[in-house]
């Protein structure tokens, strides 16, 4: 084999074109990895809201809490089912909730749609991931609201001690909570009855029911769906939030991968031009290598390895740049719920590996034709070059 240091030093010898090619490849890998991390971040943010022991009840035929409306009686009946867990006070952990969209002003005169959840007595107890980080939860019968941590400072008054204005009322902020990075962190929570009356809703949109064990979820779902008194749809909370994430994550993934694909064509051409130039400037060297006994396949491998090195370097740089994006927080509209969600870039070992392979693959593709040219050179013509 032609020694690897021949390739590395040759690339270093043409630092400018090597650097520009690596940057081009790195940029494409960055877009590729960032998009996958973004889609993963959306899935993580939304699906983190789901607890495997919880079941969400919606009106049959609806896919999200916003479009749902359920009878109050249904929850009262179903909360007596044997699968339902109880609080320390012996109350069933079942909570009817009003879910509406509120428009809050944002800096620059824009408006952001935010999910407002009207909670009831067991809402917090049914969600063990919800933790107050400051202040307290809203008291029943008041206009008080608690903010998901992602909403802090996003709109005027969005801080403990401040107040929000929507539905022609003032809503004092009394607490901030986290929810394990899930979608609840992009919500504001208020008393269910007060929120319902402010929006003309006299019943819950949906309900959350906590079961004694995740293994009981299927039994409870069958019980709900088999009961002819209700037209309800029951699904595990994990499934519900995963479904909420699917459309947005898929959209971002497909769009991003398409953009990456188009960009990659340019990067491959860039690598190809660089490698053609490398081969053209070293024809006599390659001729000497063939003359002293290196086979065609050794020359082919040498050029491929060299362009692969360009790709690996671009892949590493692109993946590192994408990793740096984990400190960037993004808000966007989830068009399945029409509410803004906040999420970050979520790197995974699989995404980083895919980014490296993508970069290496682009490098190798770019080097293929120049490598074939180098391997097919006539020794005599090459020595005369």
């Amino acid at each position, binding site marked *: *084999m*032609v*020694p690897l*240091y*021949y390739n590395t*030093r*040759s690339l*270093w*010898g043409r630092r400018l074109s090597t650097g520009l090619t690596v940057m081009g490849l790195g940029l494409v890998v960055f877009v590729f990895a960032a998009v996958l991390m973004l889609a993963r971040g959306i899935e993580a943010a939304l699906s983190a809201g789901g607890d495997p022991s919880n079941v969400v009840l919606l009106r049959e035929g609806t896919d999200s809490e916003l479009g749902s409306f359920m009878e109050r009686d249904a929850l009262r009946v179903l909360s007596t089912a044997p699968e339902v867990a109880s609080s320390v006070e012996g109350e069933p952990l079942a909570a009817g909730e009003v879910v509406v969209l509120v428009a809050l002003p944002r800096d620059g005169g824009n408006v952001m749609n935010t999910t407002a959840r009207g909670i009831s007595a067991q809402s917090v107890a049914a969600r063990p991931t919800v933790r107050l980080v400051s202040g307290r939860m809203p008291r029943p019968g008041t206009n008080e609201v608690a903010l998901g941590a992602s909403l802090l400072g996003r709109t005027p008054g969005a801080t403990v001690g401040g107040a929000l204005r929507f539905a022609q009322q003032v809503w004092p902020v009394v607490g901030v909570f986290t929810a394990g990075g899930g979608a609840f962190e992009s919500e504001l929570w208020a008393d269910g009855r007060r929120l319902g009356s402010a929006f003309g809703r006299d019943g819950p949109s949906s309900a959350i029911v906590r079961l004694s064990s995740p293994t009981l979820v299927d039994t409870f779902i069958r019980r709900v769906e088999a009961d002819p008194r209700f037209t309800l749809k029951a699904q595990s909370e994990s499934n519900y939030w995963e479904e909420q994430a699917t459309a947005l994550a898929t959209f971002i993934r497909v769009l991003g991968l398409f953009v990456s694909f188009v960009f990659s064509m340019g990067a491959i051409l860039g690598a190809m031009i660089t490698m053609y130039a490398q081969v053209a400037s070293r024809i*006599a*060297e390659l*001729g*000497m*290598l*063939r*003359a*002293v*006994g*290196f*086979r*065609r396949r050794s020359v082919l491998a040498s050029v491929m390895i060299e362009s692969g090195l360009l790709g690996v370097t671009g892949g590493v740089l692109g993946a590192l740049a994408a990793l740096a994006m984990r400190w960037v927080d993004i808000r966007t509209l989830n068009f399945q719920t029409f509410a803004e969600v906040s999420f970050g870039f979520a790197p995974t070992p699989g995404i980083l590996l895919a980014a490296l392979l993508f970069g290496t693959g682009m490098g190798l593709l770019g080097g293929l034709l120049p490598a074939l040219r180098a391997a097919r050179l006539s*020794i*005599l013509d090459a*020595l005369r070059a």
Partner: protein
Amino acid sequence: MDAAVPPMVRLQGVSKVYRRGSVEVPVLESVDLSIASGAFEAFMGPSGSGKSTLLNLISGLDRPTTGVVEVAGRDLAQLSDAELADWRSAHVGFIFQLYNLLPVLTAAENVELPLLLTPLSRAERRRHVAAALEVVGLSHRRSHRPSELSGGEQQRVAIARAIVTDPDLIIADEPTGDLDRKSAEQVLDLFEALHHGLRKTLVMVTHDPNAAEHAERIHHLEKGVLQ
């Protein structure tokens, strides 16, 4: 020549015709030649006389249109391209007019290149490289790159590269063509040392009568015909 010892190089009825479009250009015509093992022979002739083509045929870089080329008892026509590459790496050392060193490698790394095709260990390769550089008097320049060496030194590195595998045959194509008189003499002295001291078979193509004088036998080619 001792009849019992087979020649290192034997050409019989060798012709070479190049095709330029529909026109056939004969370059060598019915060349018969025998070079003994351990000989130092030079080929001279005007440009286009076919001397480089002859060298390429002897070294396995090219194939004849007709005739037989046998080197070290091997009929080169019987070898595939890949086998010919292996054969060259084991049996032939090359010295080119423009040295053809890899500019990004040091002198020692350039000399080591043909050894990378052998099963030698790294330590053994280092020993061979040191010995070859010692022979050409450049041990002190082993870490220098070609751009840091004079033309004469570069050609001596190329000679070290050619002898490092201990080949049967050393092929030199205009080895002094790009050198000043003093450097050329150093290179030719080295050739004589390889010939007399190590009993290497040397075949050289040159335009320079002074260079040819160092050889035991001088062949003249004229329009593809060996005189």
